[in-house]
């Protein structure tokens, strides 16, 4: 076991790729840094918080991007976003077998506010362009900063999301919601509540994550390749049929669970007999239980 959560972006890539196979695009020695941070006297990073490049995984040629949560929480600025866009476009040019997005991010980098927002939008469109060209794009969410903001939307524009149970996927962070609506709205310090609302088990049960794995780089890699294979078999582009099915799932979720207060009630609504046990279940036991109850599961 090699913890995915504790690894840096570069360690995650090294752990995913076949030894020595990774080549970085626009590597840090070229020192392409943010043009905006110096105005705020904020430190820059020579990779602007994201590593992008090409490698083989189990012998198959893929492109990989990994956001570094240790630099500004993995947030997306102008250069960071453009590296992701360029890599996604190159994936289409070079017809790689899959693109793996190792997302760990708070979303738009506020230090580059407007430029960051447009960048996230460009990444979203580039992901959809890549899918349209027949290349599977898979999101992996397992870093301690989670995946938030506009990048939480981008994750759900991919062909599939792999999460660990410890990781979090959402839009607005609990602190932001607590600041706006008070502690009664969302108590950001209630870690158990935060994990019930945003964590991997909840997202897997409700159909927003397509795989949930232990906090292990190998487990992430295997699940991501499986999702990429499934996407290639089913077809990677958006289709009316698939979006109609997603709309039915989201409509049903809203109708069945829209009045509920806590994910425990949703899990109960999905038929889980002892929802209070879910947070404690080991990953294998959880998956066995979830396969019987989760939404979006295919027969």
């Amino acid at each position: 076991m090699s913890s995915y959560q504790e690894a840096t972006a570069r360690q995650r890539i090294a752990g995913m790729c076949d030894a020595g196979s990774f080549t970085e695009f626009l590597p840090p020695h070229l020192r392409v840094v943010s043009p905006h941070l110096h105005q705020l006297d904020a430190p820059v990073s020579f990779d602007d918080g994201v590593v992008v490049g090409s490698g083989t995984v189990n012998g198959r040629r893929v492109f990989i991007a990994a956001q570094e949560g240790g630099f500004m929480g993995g947030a997306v600025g102008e250069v960071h976003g453009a590296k992701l866009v360029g890599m996604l476009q190159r994936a289409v040019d070079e017809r790689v077998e899959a693109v793996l997005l190792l997302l760990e991010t708070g979303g738009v980098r506020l230090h580059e506010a407007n430029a960051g927002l447009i960048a996230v939008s460009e990444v979203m469109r580039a992901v959809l362009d890549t899918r349209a060209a027949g290349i599977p794009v898979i999101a992996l969410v397992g870093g301690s900063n989670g995946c938030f903001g506009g990048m939480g939307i981008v994750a759900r524009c991919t062909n599939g999301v792999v999460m660990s149970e410890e990781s979090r996927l959402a839009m607005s962070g609990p602190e932001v919601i607590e600041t706006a609506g008070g502690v009664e709205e969302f108590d950001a310090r209630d870690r158990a509540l935060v994990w019930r609302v945003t964590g991997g088990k909840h997202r897997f049960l409700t159909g927003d994550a397509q795989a949930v794995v232990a906090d292990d780089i190998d487990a992430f890699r295997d699940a991501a390749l499986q999702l990429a294979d499934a996407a290639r078999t089913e077809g990677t582009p958006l289709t009316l049929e698939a979006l109609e099915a997603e709309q039915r799932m989201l409509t049903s979720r809203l109708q069945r669970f829209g009045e509920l207060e806590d994910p425990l009630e949703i899990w109960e609504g999905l038929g889980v007999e002892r929802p209070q046990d879910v947070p404690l279940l080991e990953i294998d036991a959880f998956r066995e239980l979830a396969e019987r109850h989760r939404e979006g599961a295919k027969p």
Partner: protein
Amino acid sequence: MNWQDVAKALFPQGHRITEQDNFLSGEAQVGGQTVTVIGTTDHTPIGVDIALAQATVILNTVREHPGRAIVILVDTQGQRLKRRDEMLGINSYMAHLGKCVELARRSGHRIVGLVYDQALSGGFITSGLIADACYALPDATIRVMGLPAMARITKVPLERLEELAQDNPVFAPGAENYLRMGGVAAIWRENLAACMEQALAQAEPVDRRAELGLERGGRKLARPVAVAVRTGTALQRDA
């Protein structure tokens, strides 16, 4: 700004847009063609319900009116900040809306966004920013978040941010700055109906915002960095 006044100016040939709980939907006439209109009003936050309602109209348009153009009228304070929306997976509802617009684009529908009042953050990514091209009225407010909140999170003094916002397109709210960065294609100052007709005629499915940002000097690195990564060549800073 009152959405009825905007709709009247945009669609003098007539429209049947209705509002329900700050969600706008309906049809309008542009240059003798019928277009689908969706949108929001009264700065309403985008929660799971509105995102799903907008997506439903888009999918219906793709199914029942192949090729019909789509207009997105934007006025929102951003995504709704509620635990309930997060529990239900608001990012998935917004992604669903974005994917429905993308399907429409790929199915031959032209899509034009117009920020007629306010656009913020997550509510903008899956509305104006997912259109083929996004336009704005001169007084539109477009931003990620207010400067006081930004100061709190970035730990940069508010005075410094206010100073930067004077002449730096990255920090200041407003349509003009998004224009310089390529996020807004143009600002409509008069004859909105003619602007809309022209925008629909010119709309194209390719994302050219980084090119525009470079041409206009508001985002000088986005395009060169993407090109350098894509082609494996050296960064052309003045390309």
